[in-house]
């Protein structure tokens, strides 16, 4: 549709590539070529965005896909991106050559992931816990990654710490002389020339005797120094724990590797070596051999955590697997540090708590606690045993508040990981709950009872509705309906509720940590709320149209977001069954997709005015796409060719009812510009038409200009012009570049600069609005206030907003054409309305005042 002949196009492409290497002169592109390339670039831009969106959608679990799909999508995406770079290069020859190397860099990172060897990603030797998310699992190991999700995503207290990565492991064991020695012994062992016992002892000694590489020792010591700062204490002791790579959840190396508690600072490096050496403990080597895991696949990361001064510690099983019908959690607790409890060597208090709200305590078994473990003092490693206070020995070591807090936390973890959990916890000396570890509860022995005849089960529970709307995140959730009619209702969402709302507004995210599931009438599976639900793995169905009508507040329902069915009543068996399935989230393909998407989707480059908006700061494909798009628009508009006859054929002034001088350039060749001026209704671009309609609403634009005091005026002159003189498009004509579905509008109204870029097609996935506003005639405070006002207005219209000083950027994506057009209309009003408002923004109350005035305007227009 955009190029007549594919062969011709490919020929042109190769010709252009050849000429890139040959010619050196910077020709000024003819406007004809410029527009052609721009239009093709935009087309590739949309293909790329669509592929990205498509990949992201697959995270929900509704789809079955394999590696090939990921590989092919990456190829198609790379292809579009490459073409975009090519077209940009054609628009501005030689100006953007560094883009090719940036592209290659990111592409090769993605290819490495796809090659799928137990890939030790490029990364640091030491990573602080605060910087770890679940995509770093291959770098920091499963235990560290899960713990950091519990802390960084779900917001629980976790020990402060850092991970010594698999990269460090590789450094020690795979590079250099150690590697050769180790390989030699492993070869002998594999050929049965040496017993497991002997080889294990030899390998462990090699590691223990080795000197850690300087850079690694330095990083670890630096990590410790950072921790001291973080917890504000100088005398620290540490837990040094293994966190090995596991390919999938079937291989649970629980208890195979070593951990050391209460390690003084001076001994951390040594403890690290001991943990690494345990990779080759006899038990571990035999286990791997039995399971067919290659030695080359093993990699060990280590966690170094500040010891929690535990008053009381223990373990929670979120499901009593031996007494399923009792539907309870089991908490075991004892005073002090819980190490022996975990190893099954100690008696502890037990609490049985109901899994359903309000989590009442169903029973307790209190034991006599004679002694407890605490950190050995005097810079000694390890724990020492002390006597428990006589009074405390027979009392429950947990208060009922603590039990309740634990139960809620444990179930939240179960909800997130979609599987019953085995959780290690402690209450520290400030009575804060700290989660030490959370891992899947082994349900093997209960499996037969958990699996049921689902077909029969479904017959017992009436279906309220099914197959309505779209699945955003699969899973099964039970809970009482919490119907949200307006934002105020979000303040009191009960724990374990199923949120039912009309719109899927980002505000719902406030309740994300308490809810079991979400159902909406309206919303986009590509919108922000959907992304959040997927991140927290909360089962969610969107766009049902009828949820708020058919469900009532307080109703007990079961949401099966995997099959898209809503049942009346609590289907506990379904929830249990759900626990036995390998979660999609635990499959290798899911993790691979997530890791690759991390190199593709995150947008780091948001603000074109930022000095970081440059190729060297591009971290993802999305960054590149954004950068190229923005630069293409600049290239198109920067070149001052208004005198050129070609442009005159495609450019025309718009006849507006307001005093706005706007030139429109149609790059699609669809307009008939034989006239000097054109009526807005005759413009081919729907989004622009709607925008202009909004801008021209009577009474908004033409209000009395407020007299500007001289001081404000001067301050604006020096600031806005000096920083923007490098932006030639804004020192001149108000301009709109359009096609029937596209519009790029840049306006300079007074001293404010607005840029809007939008696509409104029949495919929601391709649609977006990018809105950018800055400037003003007054001092910084007023301009900032106006920016905040605009930010609020945008957020209310479901834009994703970022504000920096007086710069506001709003983004909206993935919505229907109708919605885009509606928003363009609102943006038109907004731009007209805020035109000179900064002068009146004398104080913060004015923000609310103008907010409500704007609302009145919108309501009066409906």
């Amino acid at each position, binding site marked *: 549709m955009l190029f007549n002949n594919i062969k011709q196009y490919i020929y042109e492409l190769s010709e252009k590539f050849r000429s890139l290497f040959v010619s050196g002169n910077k020709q000024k592109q003819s406007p004809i070529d410029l527009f052609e390339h721009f239009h093709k670039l935009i087309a590739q831009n949309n293909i790329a965005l669509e592929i990205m969106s498509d990949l992201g959608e697959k995270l929900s679990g*509704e*789809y*079955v896909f*394999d590696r090939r*799909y990921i590989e092919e999508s990456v190829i198609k995406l790379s292809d579009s991106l490459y073409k975009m770079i090519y077209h940009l290069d054609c628009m501005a020859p030689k100006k953007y050559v560094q883009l090719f190397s940036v592209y290659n860099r990111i592409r090769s990172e993605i290819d490495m992931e796809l090659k799928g060897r137990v890939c030790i990603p490029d990364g640091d030797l030491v990573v602080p816990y605060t910087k770890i998310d679940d995509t770093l699992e291959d770098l920091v190991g499963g235990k560290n990654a899960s713990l950091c999700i519990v802390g960084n995503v779900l917001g629980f207290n976790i020990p402060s710490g850092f991970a010594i990565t698999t990269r460090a492991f590789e450094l020690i064991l795979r590079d250099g002389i150690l590697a050769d020695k180790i390989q030699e012994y492993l070869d002998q062992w594999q050929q049965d020339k040496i017993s497991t016992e002997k080889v294990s002892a030899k390998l462990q000694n090699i590691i223990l005797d080795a000197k850690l590489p300087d850079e690694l020792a330095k990083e670890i010591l630096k990590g410790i120094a950072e921790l001291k700062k973080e917890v504000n204490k100088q005398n620290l002791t540490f837990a040094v724990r293994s966190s090995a790579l596991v390919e999938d959840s079937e291989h649970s190396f629980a208890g195979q590797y070593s951990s050391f508690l209460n390690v003084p600072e001076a001994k951390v490096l040594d403890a690290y070596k001991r943990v690494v050496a345990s990779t080759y403990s006899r038990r571990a080597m035999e286990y791997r051999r039995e399971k067919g895991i290659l030695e080359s696949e093993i990699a060990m990361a280590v966690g170094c955590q500040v010891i929690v001064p535990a008053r009381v510690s223990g373990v929670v099983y979120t499901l009593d697997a031996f007494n399923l019908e009792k539907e309870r959690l089991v908490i075991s607790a004892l005073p002090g540090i819980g190490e022996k409890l975990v190893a099954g060597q100690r008696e502890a208090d037990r609490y049985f708590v109901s899994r359903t709200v309000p989590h009442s305590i169903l029973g307790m078994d209190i034991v006599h606690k004679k002694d407890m473990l605490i950190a050995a003092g005097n810079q000694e490693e390890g724990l020492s045993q002390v006597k428990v206070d006589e009074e405390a020995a027979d009392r429950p070591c947990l208060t009922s508040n603590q039990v309740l807090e634990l139960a809620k936390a444990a179930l939240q973890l179960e909800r997130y990981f979609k599987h019953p959990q085995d959780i290690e916890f402690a209450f520290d000396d400030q009575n804060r709950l700290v989660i030490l570890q959370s891992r899947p509860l082994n349900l093997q022995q209960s499996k037969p009872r958990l699996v049921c005849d689902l077909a029969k089960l479904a017959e017992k529970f009436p279906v309220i509705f099914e197959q309505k709307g779209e699945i955003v995140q699969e899973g099964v959730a039970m809970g009482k309906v919490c119907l949200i009619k307006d934002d105020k209702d979000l303040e009191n969402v009960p724990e374990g509720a199923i949120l039912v709302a009309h719109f899927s507004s980002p505000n719902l995210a406030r309740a994300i940590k308490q809810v079991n599931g979400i159902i909406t009438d309206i919303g986009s599976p590509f919108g922000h709320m959907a992304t959040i639900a997927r991140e927290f793995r909360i089962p969610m169905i969107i766009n049902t149209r009828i949820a708020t009508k058919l469900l009532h507040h307080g109703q007990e329902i079961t949401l099966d977001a*995997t099959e898209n069915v809503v049942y009346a009543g609590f289907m506990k068996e379904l929830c249990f069954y759900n626990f036995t399935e*390998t979660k999609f989230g635990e499959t290798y*393909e899911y993790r691979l997709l997530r890791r690759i998407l991390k190199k593709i989707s995150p947008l780091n480059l948001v603000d074109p005015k930022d000095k970081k908006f440059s190729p060297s700061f591009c971290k993802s494909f999305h960054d590149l796409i954004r950068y190229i798009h923005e630069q293409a628009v600049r290239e198109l508009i920067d070149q001052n060719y208004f005198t050129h006859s070609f442009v005159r054929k495609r450019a025309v002034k718009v006849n507006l009812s307001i005093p706005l001088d706007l030139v429109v350039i149609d790059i699609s060749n669809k307009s008939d510009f034989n006239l000097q001026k054109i009526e807005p209704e005759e413009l081919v671009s729907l989004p622009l038409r709607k925008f202009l309609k909004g801008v021209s609403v009577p009474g908004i634009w033409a209000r009395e200009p407020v007299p500007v005091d001289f001081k404000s005026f001067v301050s604006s002159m020096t600031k806005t012009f000096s920083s923007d003189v490098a932006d030639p498009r804004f020192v001149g004509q108000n301009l709109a570049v359009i096609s029937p579905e596209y519009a790029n509008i840049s306006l300079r109204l007074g001293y404010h600069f607005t840029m809007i870029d939008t696509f409104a097609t029949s495919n929601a996935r391709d649609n977006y609005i990018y809105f950018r506003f800055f400037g003003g005639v007054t001092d910084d405070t007023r301009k900032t206030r106006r920016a905040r006002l605009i930010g609020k207005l945008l957020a209310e219209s479901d834009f994703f907003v970022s504000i920096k000083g007086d710069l506001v950027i709003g983004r909206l994506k993935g919505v229907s054409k109708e919605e885009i057009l509606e928003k363009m209309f609102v943006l038109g009003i907004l731009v007209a309305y805020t035109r000179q408002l900064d002068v009146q923004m004398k104080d913060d109350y004015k923000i609310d005042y103008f907010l409500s005035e704007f609302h009145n305007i919108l309501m009066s227009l409906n």
Partner: protein
Amino acid sequence: MGKRRINILIVDDEPIVSKRLKPSLERKGYDVETFVRAVDALDRFKNCPFDIVITDLKMEEELDGMEFLTEVKSLRPETEVIVITGFATMETAKESFKKGVLDFLAKPFKLKEIHNAVAKAVDRIKSKEE
């Protein structure tokens, strides 16, 4: 009469496919067996009649999907075959339908699509039995 369980045979060289399909179909009350090699699946099929076979087309082993389903159809014509493939083209689709395949799904597909295809197959089987 008519209360016996429908059994389904799945063949795909990518383990993830069976890993996802099996539990999903079992939830609906079907008996499911899975294989990664068509050769093994064919052996099993010769010993046990399956109502439905779901198979990938291109598998890199001695027996590829197209040959496999041809064999299946000749051994037991009443078995319904559903093809799932990442290499969906007009030609392979046409060829499959000529061989009597009931449905043809391009990967990646939604679980919903597979359920619809299986439901269609079950309808045909049940109506033929009456």
